[in-house]
Structure formats: C-alpha cells, structure tokens
C-alpha cells in the first residue's frame, strides 16, 4: 500500500503445451500444491510487485515506508520555481486480508527563488483500500482505493491547502507470466496502474494574506479544481527471471533488482485549469530483500508546466508482515491458516 505520499496530492504457451494446457498447469500449482497459506505483501501467485514511488501499488499490506525527494518545482512565487525537499512516511495496516487502512505525513522544505526557505508539514493523509481481485493464475490484482487529505492540518506556508480533498480510485497490477514460451524472456515484465479523481470538498477557499508591499491584509479566493490522477508503471523483475524463466549467474545485488519506469500524471478537470496536465516520468531501480525494499528514481517533468529540471526520489520500505508475522504484521481480523 506504499506510496510516495506526495503523489496523491500533487497523485502459451509453456513448453510443449497449448494455452488451455498452460492455464491448467498454473491452476494445478495452486490446487495440487495447495493455495498460498498466508497473505503476502505484493504477491499475486509467484509474481512480486515492489512498492513504487509515484504510483500507488494495488496491494493491501502491513508496511511502513519512508520516501525522500528533491526537485525544482514550478511555483507561484516571484521567481517562478522553488527547490523543494520532501520527506514522507506512511504506515499501512491490514484490517482483514483484503481491507486495509493507512496514515501518512509529509515534511516539506521549500526554497523559492529569491526568497527565504519555508519548512513545515503538509496536510495529513489517510486512506482505505479494498483488494477485490487477486488472481494467482494470471498474476493479476485490483483494488478500490479511497484516500483523503485532511484540509488545514498542515502548514499553509509550505502549500498545505485549507480544503480537504477525497480521492476515490482504482488500482491494478498484472504480470506477464502467462506469455507463451516463445516470449518467456518477457514474462518478468509487469505493469501496474492507478486512476482516481481528486475531489476538493470546497469549491473555493478564502484566505487572508499579509501584503508587504501595501502593509495590509488582503483577501484571496482560490478555486479548488477537480483533478484526474492517473499513472502507470512498467517493471522488469530480475528475481522472477532468475527463479522462473532462466537462472543466470547474476551477482548480488543485481539478482534482487527490479528496474522500473513510472508515469505519474494529473489532469485538471475544471475551475480555470480544465485540460491542463502535469506529471513526471520516473525511471529507477528497486532492490528487494527479505524484510525491506530500497529504491531510487530520477523524476523527469513531462512538460514545462511540470518543471524543467530532473529531481530524485528514494524509498526505504519495511515489510511489517515479515518483520512481525505473528503480531503487528498480520490482519487485525484473520483466520488461522494452519494449526
């Protein structure tokens, strides 16, 4: 369930067999060997999806993630841009195997061109997610997501909005493990995607600001637009290649790497900015271990409106279900999987 918290606001044939035979073989893995005995973070069958940085991954899980990023972002300040550093954390907890909740916070340091730096917290973010589809056979997963940014819970000086925003959305992931044998080296590929609509609870917010030029307080009205937040990732899972397709002599840490490209976009729908799209393309790589995941990505603006310099993002992601399998790392309400 991990995400870069700033993403929301900103958001066969197998050898010798036919397709039907292949489907049957996969089903046999599940049926003859038995179903996966315990819920697993990021797994759909033998496919593992790492937690990505700018696009929500579709899983409900027990996890704790920290994301750090730095980028020169467009700004309404006089210089037109700000150097922005973000440090965010998010804690996700399963209520049941399919239902989870999350809470996240973000600290921001913004340094506008020609102005003093401002530091503070962004609005608090909370979320709930229901994973309604998990197909081991097709390495597919899908979830309904509901996020909310709690208005006026952060520092206005760093851009925290006074209005709350809710973001209902759909998340999905699909591995390419069911490609035919002739394309087996493409099986480590996977895609994930997200689409949601950010809906401000207030169409307009009125703020009062001190104007140093006139020495007076001025009242400003801000129109809060609705925004479609959409994104996708393309991943190539090297551990999948090693374990299920072709074992090669890749040394550590390369054998635990997953190169990823993420596309994170926002398209404004109304209230003065209809049709405007901003976003970033973020190529990077993740290293996934037994208890945690590390990742780093470059963050490239897709257009001038999104910025004109490359930023950087990094993640440390802890798998709580592996760290605390019998206590904090399991759903609050769960069935014992075996004696």
């Amino acid at each position, binding site marked *: 369930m991990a995400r870069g918290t700033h993403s929301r606001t900103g958001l066969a044939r197998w050898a010798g067999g036919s397709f039907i035979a292949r489907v049957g073989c996969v089903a046999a893995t599940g049926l003859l*060997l038995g179903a996966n005995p*315990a819920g697993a973070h990021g797994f759909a069958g033998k496919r593992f999806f790492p937690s990505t940085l700018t696009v929500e991954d579709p899983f409900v899980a027990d996890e704790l993630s*920290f994301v750090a990023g730095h980028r020169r972002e467009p700004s309404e300040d006089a210089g037109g841009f700000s150097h922005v550093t973000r440090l965010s954390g998010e804690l996700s907890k399963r209520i049941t195997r399919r239902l989870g909740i999350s809470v996240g916070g973000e600290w921001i340091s913004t340094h506008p061109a020609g102005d003093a730096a401002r530091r503070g917290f962004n609005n608090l973010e909370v979320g709930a997610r229901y994973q309604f589809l998990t197909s081991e056979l097709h390495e597919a997963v899908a979830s309904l997501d509901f996020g909310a940014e709690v208005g006026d819970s952060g520092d206005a000086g760093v851009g925290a909005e006074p209005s709350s925003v809710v973001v209902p959305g759909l998340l999905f992931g699909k591995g390419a493990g069911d490609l035919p044998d002739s394309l087996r080296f493409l099986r480590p590929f996977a895609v994930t995607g997200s689409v949601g609509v950010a809906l401000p609870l207030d169409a307009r917010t009125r703020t009062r600001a001190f104007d140093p030029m006139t020495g007076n307080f001025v009242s400003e009205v801000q129109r809060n637009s609705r925004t479609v937040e959409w994104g996708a990732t393309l991943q190539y899972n090297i551990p999948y290649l090693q374990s299920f397709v072709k074992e090669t002599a890749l040394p550590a840490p390369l054998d635990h790497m997953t190169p990823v490209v993420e596309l994170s976009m926002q398209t404004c729908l109304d209230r003065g900015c209809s049709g405007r799209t901003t976003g970033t393309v973020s190529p990077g790589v993740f290293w996934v271990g037994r208890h945690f995941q590390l990742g780093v990505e470059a963050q490239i603006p897709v257009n001038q409106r999104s910025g004109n310099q490359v930023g950087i993002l990094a993640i440390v992601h802890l798998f709580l279900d592996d760290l605390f*399998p019998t206590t904090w790392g399991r759903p609050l309400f769960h069935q014992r999987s075996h004696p």
Partner: protein
Amino acid sequence: MSLRRSLATTLAGASLILAALSSPGAAHTLPVHSHPPAGAVLAEAPREVWVRFDGHLELALSRLRVEDSDGKRVDLGPEEAQRSQAKALRVALPPLPAGTYRVRWKAVGTDGHGTVGDYSFRVR
C-alpha cells in the same frame, strides 16, 4: 502542530522499534538457487531436483514435485527436505527420457508465510 509532530515522531520511533524488535528469521521464503537451474537444457537427465530458499522452511507444509509435459508427476516422492539445512526441498528422479519437465514448489516459511513457483528444464 503538536499532532503532526507527534505523527512524525511516532513514525520515526516506530521504525526504530520495528527494526529492533523484528524477528530476523521470519519472512517470505523465496528461491535463491535450484538444480537443475530454471531454463536449463541438459544432455544428461538429472537424478534429483532441489530448490534452495532464502529462509527456513516449515517442512510439513512445503511441497516439491516434478511433472512431464503432460502434467504427469514423474518424481519419486514423497518430498524430502534437506534437513541438514532445512532451507531446501529435494526429490529424487527416475531415469527421465528426453523431454521438457516442470518443477513446481510451494514453500512455507516458519512464520507461516507461503510462496509458490514453478520453472521448466529440458532433457535432450
């Protein structure tokens, strides 16, 4: 402000506590090496198949089997774990004719977390 600072402090503190209190032996067990390796093309039929994992296994719940291209089980089960390490599953094989074979496994760690997987190899 105190709420937000408390949240940040809690998250940071929680991560340290988590790291300190975690049980290092527990995690999803994933394969690190297998014999024959995934995708191998062999001139000689192997006498056994084994898959080694990155963690200890719950042997009673873990499985390993080998099937031919028709999905028929060909190994000499029952499954046998390499108990000296308890991190690997192994089955012996009869003399195999040329063909493509699929290895299927289910690995359950000592924490109850399970993973599944499969791969193929070919005997010329």
